[in-house]
């Protein structure tokens, strides 16, 4: 792993009036590292993910990102243009519901190719080749390239969303319950695929999940959240095999061992 963190998070908090979304979260994310944020619904994990990915303004604290030019930038201070550029080039965001991350009425090829066109690619043939290549990497046949996501199954849509995000070679991908709402067998296949891609591409990823099995399979490190606070964090195997907090012990014991 590289010697400088990709993301530096300092005392990040988000409050809604009196109510806490997340409170005083600090951590660093390293290149190639996969971090899982786990907790029950309402624990603040999605709020945290949205603050990290600039989809939500934090109330206090900072998130610094190691830009490709080597400088650290406070994400809250990026201009709207810089922020949008970052989000469609160096970052990916995989939504739980593929419809939130895809254009449902344009073809799979255009969905995957959109980011390339957004950054100035103007060769139809090469855009299409890149889209075909990425579809095959997420196990979608080249013959489906002109079909709309509406004609795809849930698992295929999710794989399409991943391909759409990865085509620009992002360094950091945020995932919000990427396997939520899928059948168990479809989930297993998708998890395998994500694990392979993350490994092959050396991606950093922050994955929000309520499913400890997903955290076990994909992440190197994990944070457990409760009531907006991070109550325990560490290497995934350590946290799952030797949970220190009573709440984490409860979470771990309440699921099947994987």
């Amino acid at each position, binding site marked *: 792993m590289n010697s400088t963190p990709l993301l530096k998070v300092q005392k990040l908090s988000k409050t809604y009036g009196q109510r806490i979304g997340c409170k005083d979260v600090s951590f660093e994310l390293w290149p190639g590292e996969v971090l899982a944020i786990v907790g029950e619904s309402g624990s603040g994990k999605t709020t945290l993910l949205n603050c990290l990915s600039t989809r939500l303004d934090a109330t206090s604290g900072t998130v610094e990102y190691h830009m490709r030019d080597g400088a650290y930038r406070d994400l809250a201070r990026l201009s709207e243009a810089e922020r949008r550029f970052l989000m469609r080039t160096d970052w990916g965001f995989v939504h739980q519901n593929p419809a939130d991350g895809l254009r449902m009425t344009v*073809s799979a090829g255009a969905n995957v*190719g*959109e980011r390339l*066109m957004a950054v100035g690619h*103007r*060769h139809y043939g090469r855009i299409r080749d890149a889209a075909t290549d990425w579809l095959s990497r997420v196990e979608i046949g080249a013959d489906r390239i*002109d079909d709309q996501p509406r004609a795809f199954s849930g698992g295929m849509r999710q794989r399409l969303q991943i391909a759409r995000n990865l085509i620009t070679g992002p360094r950091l991908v945020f995932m919000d319950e990427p396997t939520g709402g899928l059948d168990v067998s479809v989930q297993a296949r998708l998890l395998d695929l994500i694990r392979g891609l993350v490994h092959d591409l050396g991606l950093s990823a922050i994955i929000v999940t309520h499913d400890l099995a997903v955290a076990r399979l994909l992440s190197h490190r994990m944070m457990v959240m409760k009531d907006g606070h991070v109550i325990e964090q560490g290497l995934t195997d350590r946290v799952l095999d030797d949970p220190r907090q009573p709440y984490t012990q409860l979470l771990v014991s309440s699921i099947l061992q994987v």
Partner: protein
Amino acid sequence: MSALATYNFAYLDEQTKRMIRRAILKAIAIPGYQVPFASREMPMPYGWGTGGVQLTAAILGPDDVLKVIDQGADDTTNAVSIRAFFQKVAAVAVTTRTAEATIIQTRHRIPEAELTANQVLVYQVPIPEPLRFLEPRETETRQMHALSEYGLMHVKLYEDIARNGHIATTYAYPVMVEGRYVMDPSPIPKFDNPKMHRSQALQLFGAGREKRIYAIPPHTQVVSLDFEDHPFTIQHFDRPCALCGAEGVYLDEVVLDDRGSRMFVCSDTDHCETRRAEGHVGPEGMPSGYGAKEAAE
């Protein structure tokens, strides 16, 4: 109620004209950018050229010579009506001859003859926003223009090619102006797009209902959007104008009977008449100025 009978020169009051001229100046300063303006109700329906009429009214002077075309023709009803309006409220000289006009108001065409530095082409625009059918929200499209976020536009062109093998946009074909703003050239056929590029004439676009003015100053770069391997192309007619024999011009298809006979004639009526007066004859034309005489008003 006698006040009803008195109108200012060119209908609009001078305050309003000044407001429109300020918007025009801003539009010229930022080529391709849609400048909001407080469009007035005009005595013709929205969608019938109220934007173009306001522009023309704001720039028209007593010495101007006005030409009005619709579909390339001076004699289509709405062109006749708008021309008559300015004759009535401004007593301005009118012409059907492109070369004689100082201001040409148009709907859906650019004249075939190359325009010159002392001419202004005023376009009537129904929907000024090129991104409207991709993103209906004004608040969002404004943001997209501000940040030059035009990837979506190419997504649409990509879809056209994927589905039809062609970019299936044949009119109102989007252009990039001076490398900065994507602009809707109004519903002219894409055949006319190249005429906008580095034109010597000032080109003004007015959308009355949508309250937007935009401009292409003389000599501005105007590039039709495309892909490197699917370059922008224009319609090509494989026959000349039946009346004047012109080639490389836009033709109207005229259905002659109910057995499917048809002929193709210049859409630009002045261009056709000028050529015929000069002695050009198409396969179905008559040598003398037969048709030309009929059409002159």
